[in-house]
């Protein structure tokens, strides 16, 4: 059934800023040049100039503000409601962090400023490096990668450089079948071949399969990429043995830090034997997601990997002659893999994450992880006690860490509801759905990560919503199958957007 009335948001049809454009309208008032009005053709040869300015919208400021405010209301966001998107760590974004990032000393600091006149920025970066090194249990950090997958690529290029330095060429990178999609994509970009490793009955790495993959060609194993806790939200208890096997084969062990929020102050990747770790500052360290970035993906590495870190590296130089220590950008790194991007990295993200680390401190970070794990286990238990216990069973039934994965297979078989239907119906209840259809090895997967910044009441409300959806589906499964109803648009034709892509505004002229 479909409710007859349109929801309020649906009455307003999508109109682009271009469609609001009227010739001659504008917002900007520019300063007078204050210099001679030389014709542009006298300064730049005509064959290098464009005939017509680009077609940008012509709209006055009030309408620009209204347009984007209206658009903003067509978004769901973390500040409006629960966002249990697995593997994404949608924790609260403290507004203090926005305030300090906007200080002119940060926001208006030019990246090519002489390091002697950017001491505060370099010290902040150094302090963040040191903090992340301690959290990871590894000695050295590069802040340069722009996001998690950029960190992965960095880690693989570091692995390649490390082996090349030893006169070795290795071709294969192992990754569990539960790994994030970025892992195999990064492997290919780094010029390696992916070798999948199976998952065992307890949701960890299948040790027999891992041994077999290594034994096939031990000299070719460059690296094992692992997330721990993994994407099932489970800590791999065999991690020490895994590390020993990979190191014995001469490979590096890479830690995908997307799930670091489970373990801060409790255990450290370096202590588990990892050589290279990337951290998502836009996950565990509270940088707002921005609807798809910006983020930052610093890497922490062991001492044997350190010589190969990207350049420049922020370093502290001890003072002399009565001067205190100073901070600098070190380009003299002969074994470095080189740059991964322009300038020094996403500094504005570093400011926010450093403010977050200072705010929480040693105890606070540990407490954040403890509460994240508590919240996940509580929500898992609440769901298991209701209809979800039968219809949406936990894929691997043991205590989870910061997230857990449910299988919608019984729900689909018994009620005819796919995981997608449940997700879409949750939108009508005002919740962002969990991550769906990932990890791939769980049939009809739902991956739930509540984070530490949710109250018990939020978790209960979410569990109640799931219960209600499963209950209503027992009598009227069509309700969920046609959901959502209350959103600005209803289910969209995604196939068409790929088969016949319309990726920009068409102008009638």
């Amino acid at each position, binding site marked *: 059934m479909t409710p007859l009335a349109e929801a309020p948001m649906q009455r307003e049809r999508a109109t682009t800023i271009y469609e609001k454009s009227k010739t001659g309208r504008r*917002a900007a008032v520019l300063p007078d040049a204050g210099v001679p009005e030389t014709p542009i053709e006298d300064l730049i040869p005509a064959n290098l100039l464009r005939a017509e300015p680009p077609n940008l919208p012509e709209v006055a400021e009030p309408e620009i503000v209204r347009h984007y405010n209206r658009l903003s209301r067509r978004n769901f966001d973390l500040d409006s409601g629960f966002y249990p998107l697995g593997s994404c760590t949608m924790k609260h974004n403290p507004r203090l962090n926005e305030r300090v990032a906007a200080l002119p000393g*940060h926001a208006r600091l*030019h990246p090519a400023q002489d390091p002697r006149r950017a001491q505060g920025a370099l010290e902040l970066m150094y302090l963040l490096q040191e903090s992340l090194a301690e959290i990871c249990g590894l000695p050295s950090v590069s802040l340069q990668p722009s996001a998690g997958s950029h960190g992965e690529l960095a880690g693989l290029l570091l692995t390649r450089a490390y082996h090349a330095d030893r006169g070795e060429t290795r071709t294969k990178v192992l990754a569990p079948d539960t790994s994030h999609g970025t892992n195999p994509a990064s492997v290919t970009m780094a010029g390696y071949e992916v070798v999948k490793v199976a998952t065992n009955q307890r949701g960890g790495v299948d040790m027999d399969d891992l041994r077999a993959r290594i034994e096939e060609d031990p000299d070719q194993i460059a690296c094992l990429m692992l997330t721990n806790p993994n994407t099932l939200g489970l800590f791999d208890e065999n991690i020490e043995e895994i590390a020993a096997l990979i190191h014995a084969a001469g490979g590096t062990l890479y830690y995908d830090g997307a799930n670091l929020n489970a373990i801060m102050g409790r255990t450290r990747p370096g202590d588990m034997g990892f050589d290279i770790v990337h951290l998502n500052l836009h996950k565990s360290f509270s940088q707002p997601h921005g*609807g798809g970035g910006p983020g930052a993906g610093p890497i922490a590495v062991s001492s044997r990997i350190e010589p190969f870190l990207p350049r420049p590296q922020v370093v502290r130089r001890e003072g002399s002659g009565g001067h205190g220590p100073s901070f600098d950008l070190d380009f003299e790194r002969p074994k470095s893999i080189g740059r991964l991007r322009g300038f020094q990295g996403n500094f504005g993200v570093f400011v926010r994450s450093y403010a977050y680390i200072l705010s929480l*401190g040693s105890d606070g970070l540990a407490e954040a992880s403890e509460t994240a794990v508590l919240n996940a286990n509580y929500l898992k238990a609440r769901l298991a006690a209701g209809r979800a216990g039968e219809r949406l069973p936990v894929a691997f039934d043991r205590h989870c860490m910061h997230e857990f994965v449910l299988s919608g297979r019984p729900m689909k078989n018994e009620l005819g509801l796919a995981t997608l239907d449940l997700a879409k119906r949750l939108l009508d209840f005002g919740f962002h759905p969990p991550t769906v259809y990932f990890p791939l090895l769980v049939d009809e997967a739902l991956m739930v990560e509540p984070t530490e910044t949710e109250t018990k009441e939020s978790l209960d409300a979410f569990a109640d919503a799931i219960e209600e959806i499963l209950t209503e589906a027992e009598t009227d499964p069509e309700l969920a199958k046609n959901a959502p109803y209350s959103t600005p648009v209803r289910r969209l034709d995604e196939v068409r*957007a790929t088969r016949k892509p319309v990726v920009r505004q068409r102008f009638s002229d």
Partner: protein
Amino acid sequence: MLAAIGVDSVDELFEQIPGPLRLGRPLDLPAGMSEAEVYERLAALAGRNADAEEQVTFLGAGMYDHYVPAIVDAITSRSEFLTPYTPYQPEISQGGLQVMFEFQTAMSELTGLPVSNAGLYEGPSSVASAGYLAMGATKRKKFVVSRGLHPHSRETLATYSVGYGTEVVEVGLDGGVTDAAALAAAVDDETAAVFLQSPNFLGAVEDVEALGATAKEHGALLVVACDPMTLGILKPPGESGADIALGEGQPLGNRLDFGGPSFGFFCATEAQIRRMPGRIAGETEDVDGRRGFVLALQTREQHIRREKATNNICTAQALNALGAMVHLAWLGREGFRELGELLVRRTAYARQRLAAVDGVELLHEAPVVREFAVRLSAPVEEVLDRVADRGIAAGYPLGREYEEFDDGLLVAITERRTPAQIDELAEALGAAIAAERGAKVANTATNAPQGVTA
């Protein structure tokens, strides 16, 4: 909550971590602080940076001190744009998806190419992503790059190339622009892509069409890095034969932020649409026929295609692209062109003004838009220090990246740099050069018996 879980303590939940791996001590970090204390700590650090609020800056080299209108901050700081994740659930992400669609349209208009993505990390890694695309499109393994391409882009492309297994061949500059003969000689039938930048790192506008012809002859892709703020007046790369136009997006609606976060833009011909990196929003309809937007062509992406993805990028820079879109809407069609003209005229004024200073000469005579290079007859770093004492960042010392221009200074102009500030720069540079020469004379006179040449 513990009772519902069936445990007595939170510690029990962590027992899945093997004993020897448990940290067993607090992290060696300071204790948490109040909001006020954190603010003071961060403000103190910020206070130790010479930012563009306290210094008049002529630094550019890829990032520029433009005036970002207040409307940009007002919109990008809204929770609804600041705090969502990537729009995996389109029904509740129409705002963000439509912004991407509008942004793609604007970038497509700027570059003159039909397809734009919704943004990448920043400029140099976008160049590297273009290399990866070109390698896949041509099945070739050689890149030819102009030395006028931003040094960070060249280095990033080289870093990535080690992974791809591609070779990077560099072509030098002649008179401030890419050496056309050397470029023609370097490009062959093994070349996957030719990389140019216009305006190039020295500020010179390149004749992309003429230079790019050699790429076409050999079936290589033409990749053009450009400064979006110059595209109100310069011929768009798409009209000069570019297959890919990309660049650093910071000048549009983004702060300097000591180098990031900003965004990279990436536009291409229709032929490359299924090889594009990054998110792309597409228009479609919902079940009731309402217009809507979704992430299109997701079959290129890592979360679907895994090791067969066209790129590994996931989280990019959506909020920064929104800032750019709002800035572009604020400028509008006419304002964007006017700003370009303002930059050209003030830069011409600054170039003329500096060239008249004793001890300063132009490094090249090629046409420029918003940045130009000069040579100083006194050591650049020392001159910069002297000028900095007067509250001016005179520009970027080219010797940092170009050994052949160790006497070079790159000077950038934005609408914030007034004619009066330009006059002050000219005066300060002249005084600093004279003082350095004087200091050198004095030094030489006291330390050495030989004659003075300064």
